[in-house]
């Protein structure tokens, strides 16, 4: 089982250290960091700029396998170290022997998620330091004797009160530590529904349901879709009092091929009647993830945006001594014939939101001077990544990025990094999955119900050769 848990800062410093059974020497973390820091994205240091460029920060390292066997100094034994990286922090779990690896990795993710829930996103070094006593209390509840225990946010909230913003402000003003003065909280004992807090009260009662479909695709340089895949999920934000029992049905459940559910869902009911029956946790959660039946996607996929990149690295046999240069030009256009727009939305002007483009330049590019006619572009010198933030895109716009690259020597690039496009289209669905009905039983109130579809890019690549 899990012997110890460490949380490391982005510079490898131990922020949190907790031993559940026996001690793990700190040197284990040094071993880890030695290997992790070899593959840091930047020159031995930590990228500070990349968070500016990309909304989801570039990982600091991604070549360290999530499971490592680390020899213990002065002994013939070794220990297995599991690691995940989130918001720049490394979460490490040390296990002395056989254990289910997914149990550990899932658990580490859960720990990181809970911290997010408690301290807000992103959970970085300062968030951990600001809340270390809550962190320890949470770990106490989440692990005992090296076993993962309570990891449901609702159940934890019943035992450990999240530090709330008001309390913080109050304490700054009055100088009184808020955790102590909190009157309520920790009343709770274990609810019999592990994922739901007891005694929930909301006014008004509301529930919001998003059907989100993420489209992964690889598109070649002339716009042909090489492969695409749709990953769907149903995200719920529940603010319902008491113990509401919900029934969710889809208009055409046969669209769903394979799905995985939040523990609150009653499998048998879905199996027999395709109705999702559940008592929701309080707050936000993912009710289910699904994949779409292949035959639904048979008609193919036309992306909502055409991207035409062109890179010119100059001629190979140059004879002058001038610094070699190349040029880059990327054009984007919205496409109303996309599979994601229905007849209805095509009548009006189609709108795509949150459009952005990430361009990783090949190693031979020393620097790039980029201009755009729409939005703004940021170029990170160290990682050689440009991020072009366009925002909303409609059919009439013709965004273009152009610029010059200074190259290292007269070589041709030996790699062709793919561009990544991200976008979001509200009220759109790839599969056409729609809610048939959502009903609440077990409570007398009639909640406000909001249902919507969103289609957005998952890992959406444009190949450049």
């Amino acid at each position, binding site marked *: 089982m899990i012997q110890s848990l460490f949380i490391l800062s982005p510079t490898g410093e131990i*922020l949190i250290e907790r031993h559940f059974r026996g001690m793990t020497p*700190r040197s284990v973390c040094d071993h880890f960091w030695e290997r992790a820091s070899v593959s840091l994205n930047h020159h031995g240091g930590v990228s500070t700029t990349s968070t500016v460029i990309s909304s989801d920060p570039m*990982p600091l390292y*991604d*070549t360290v396998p*999530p*499971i490592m066997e680390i020899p213990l100094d002065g002994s*013939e034994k070794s220990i297995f170290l*599991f690691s*995940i990286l989130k918001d720049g922090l490394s979460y490490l779990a040390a296990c002395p*022997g*056989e*254990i*289910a*690896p*997914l149990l550990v*990795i*899932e658990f580490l993710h859960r720990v990181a998620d809970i911290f997010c829930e408690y301290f807000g996103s992103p959970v970085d070094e*300062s968030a951990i330091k600001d*809340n*270390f*006593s*809550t962190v*320890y*209390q949470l770990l106490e509840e989440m692990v*005992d004797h090296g*076993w*993962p*225990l309570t*990891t*449901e946010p609702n159940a934890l909230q019943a*035992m450990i009160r999240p530090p709330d913003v008001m309390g913080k*402000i109050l*304490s*700054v*003003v009055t*100088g*009184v*530590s*808020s*955790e*102590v003065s909190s009157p309520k909280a*920790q009343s709770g004992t*274990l609810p*019999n529904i*592990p994922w739901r807090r007891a005694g929930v009260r909301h006014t008004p009662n509301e529930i919001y349901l998003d059907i989100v479909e993420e489209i992964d695709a690889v598109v070649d340089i002339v716009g042909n879709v090489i*492969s695409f895949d749709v990953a769907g999920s149903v995200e719920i934000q529940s603010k319902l009092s008491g113990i509401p029992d919900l029934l969710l049905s889809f208009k055409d459940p046969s669209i769903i*091929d*394979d799905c*995985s*559910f*939040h523990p609150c869902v009653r499998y048998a009911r879905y*199996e027999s009647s395709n109705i999702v029956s559940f008592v929701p946790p309080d707050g936000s959660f993912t009710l*289910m*993830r699904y*994949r779409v039946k292949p035959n639904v996607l048979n008609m193919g996929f036309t992306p909502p945006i055409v991207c035409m990149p062109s890179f010119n690295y100059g001629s190979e046999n140059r004879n002058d001594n001038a610094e070699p240069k190349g040029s880059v030009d990327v054009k984007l256009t919205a496409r109303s014939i996309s599979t994601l727009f229905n007849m209805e939305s095509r009548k009006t002007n189609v709108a795509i939101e949150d459009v952005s483009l990430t361009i990783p330049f090949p190693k031979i590019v020393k620097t790039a001077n980029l201009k755009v006619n729409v939005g703004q572009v940021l170029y990170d010198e160290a990682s050689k990544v440009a991020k072009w933030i366009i925002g909303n895109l409609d059919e009439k716009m013709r965004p273009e990025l152009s610029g010059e690259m200074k190259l290292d020597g007269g070589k041709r690039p*030996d*790699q062709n990094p793919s561009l*990544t496009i991200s976008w979001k289209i509200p009220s759109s669905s790839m599969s056409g999955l729609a809610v048939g009905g959502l009903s609440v039983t077990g409570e007398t109130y009639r909640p406000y119900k909001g249902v919507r579809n969103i289609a957005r890019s998952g890992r959406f690549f444009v*190949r450049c050769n």
Partner: protein
Amino acid sequence: MPSINLPGKNDGGHDSRFFTTQKKGEMHELKMELHSTDRNTKVDAVKKVIASMTVGKDVSSLFTDVLNCVQTGNIELKKLVYLYLINYSKSQPELALLAVNTFVKDASDPNPLIRALAVRTMGCIRVEKITEYLCDPLSRALRDEDPYVRKTAAVCVAKLYDLAPALVQERGFLEILHDLISDSNPSVVANGVAALSEIAETSGKDVMKISASVLQKLLAALNECTEWGQVFILDSLAKYAPADAREAEGIIERVTPRLQHANSAVVMSAVKVILSYMELMGSANTDTIRNLTRKLAPPLVTLLNSEPEIQYVALRNINLIVQKRPSILENEIRVFFCKYNDPIYVKMEKLEIIIKLVSEKNIDQVLLELKEYATEVDVDFVRKSVSAIGRCAVKLERAAERCIGVLLELIQTKVNYVVQESVIVIKDIFRRYPNRYESIIATLCDNLDTLDEPQAKASMIWIIGEYAERIDNADELLDNFLETFEEEDPSVQLQLLTATVKCFLKNPEDTQDMVQRVLDLATEESDNPDLRDRGFIYWRLLSTDPEAAKLVVLGDKPVIEDDTFKLEPNLLNTLIGQIATLSSIYHKPPEAFVVRASGRGVMHLGVGGDDMGEDDEEDYEDDEGIEQEDPVDLLDMGGMGINDNGAGDDLFGSSTPQAEQAVRFVKVCSEEKSGGIDVLAAYHQVNGNVLMELEFQNKSCSVPVSNLAIQLNKNAFGLSPVNQQIICNPPVQVGSSGTATVQLVANRSMLAPVQPGPASPQVQVAIKNMATSQVFYFAANFNIDAMFSSGGQMDRNAFIETWKNIDDGKEIYSTVSDLPSTDIDGIQAKFELYNIFFIARRQGMDGQEVVYFSMKTMTGMDFLAELTFKAGVNACKICLKTENTSYGHLVKNAIENLLRF
């Protein structure tokens, strides 16, 4: 802004300030604050103490002061104090004992959180003394009305077991844990199961034995308990062997919904249960198995949409699954295509699986992908992709030409490492399809200058030598390489030597000088013994018999095979049962991950390591000693010719076809346990089959015994029944008895986890009486001679060699007296019946007779025995040697028993 620097309080809830107080007299100040009457000051002080603890400072001097703060109604403060206590109780347990009174008091606090906290913390203090205080509160906590306390207490039992297993049994805590499996609260169930499984694992005892009723409880709990609990339950189920295919199917039905869980650990453990049970169901239920196969694909594919770390684990497991059951994912190759921003460790694993799933149906798509990968950034990934193209060619004959086409395209990119890797795999393609694709050699030769890595150079040189007759300037090309011969890597030198000799044999006129030069270089200039040896061999071959040299050097080479299915089948079968464990990540057998019992194993290893050097020396001396003796031994044995013959005759005479192994029944189960049936059991071997003979004596079971199902627990021999059904025909009425024969097979997946020390002969048996639905359990000790293989006769020289090679420390001695007979010929004959084979016999000193025997189990363990008899003494000295020391005593016992009757 001076106000900012005022002591900590002003910045409110930000705990980070506690990390920054670093001044002189800090300890004293903290002490003062800990005794403050103001609650908030106290809390802050404890936080500061814990912050110091976190950064590694020693704050143990504040122990009593911190402990003082525990007397509070504020639960947060209490928790912090407890946190401090747990931390120091590890390094300074004597201090922790000071707090015992507090724990005991808190354990009956009206607030359940505090009750649980006290019990939990006490369990974390690993001092034996604390156990006497812990038992009573724990006993109460296990029955507490609050589930939070019960679940904490369940964990605490496991903690206590670590410390004082006897106490746990004495107080009946294990039984209470069993009760908790049917608790109304899912978290309690989860922890109960977790505690029982862990105790079962660490103790090696089967406290988590799954009986019919436990099985039902577990299956019910599976629906109710937390996701982590589900993982524990599924892992326990995976270890259970269902009585028959029907039960297996029933359990699978209950487990399948778990494939849809959001938690990947639950999904993977469910996959494990299903895959293991599929093995048990055998080939009889093809429809069911086909159905299950179909159900397994989607959840596995879904795992690939998760975080990269989860994908990595999933991919390592899928790697095993596609080797065992390729049909599950045969149509899903697309999901294994790499995404540009997959971490490198995910990409590498995906490539492995792509190669395993590639077929003539999807090869074109795969080649397009691999070609794309070959232009990516990461050099290792690019090389592996190029190499994958070659592996596709080796695997799929019909697609080889297309693969070569892609490789040639890649060579045109002139990217250094792409070219080198391509050359390396093209060599393999040439070896797989000789004389088919030589037309591309010219292209390869154009890129000679690019090659700077030994492996690529060696491959290219191999190609030149192999096809020297088709390359006009082969000698020139080799000559170029020879210029730098001395600087080359040994592997390149070896290839150069061979290639030059090949070239010479094919075209002797132009290359005589060259071959002379390379032979000189290899034999005279080089320090590398391999190179020198090979040089001398070629030299001698060429100078004595060039025709023979041709046969040797230009002879047909074995055709290489596609190595993508490379796990050895036995290991693969073992690993399939270990899905969702570390074994499945490292593709190593589970024994590699057994945590040795506390420290002892390490100590032992350490000593062994130290001794190693000396041992070696001793061995060496021993060897010399033996060598002086051995020839004598050998001669002695050889000189036994007459005896040998005599023995042979005797053997022939006595091993008449009618002779059978005697069957010795032992009572293994009495009527109280089995609902009125006494069971006797015996093991023996007939026609190479291991049989378990059962005799049922119906004492008081009103329903005649006719239809039973048998199941064995995992055991040290890997035995399991071929057929689970036992039919007694005619049915055994009350007062009568009947027998049944159960054929057993040894199967690696039924091997009990390896325990240190001697293997247990115990085979745990469960029998279900189908008529009454009663299941009863008993253990029937196995006699290992029933699994000695008829192929265990060792060659005499092999015997001597093996005997010498086994360390003397692995010898087991015993003496059997009061033998019924000391007639060696008779014993020999009897032993032959039990597949204990006579090797040799010699006269020792003082009228001693020494006889050697060999035996081998069906699972491949060798045992060598030396029996010494002395004229006129009715006793025999046994000396047994084996590498499988943990089974040695069982064989020794078997020999003793055979001698005695």
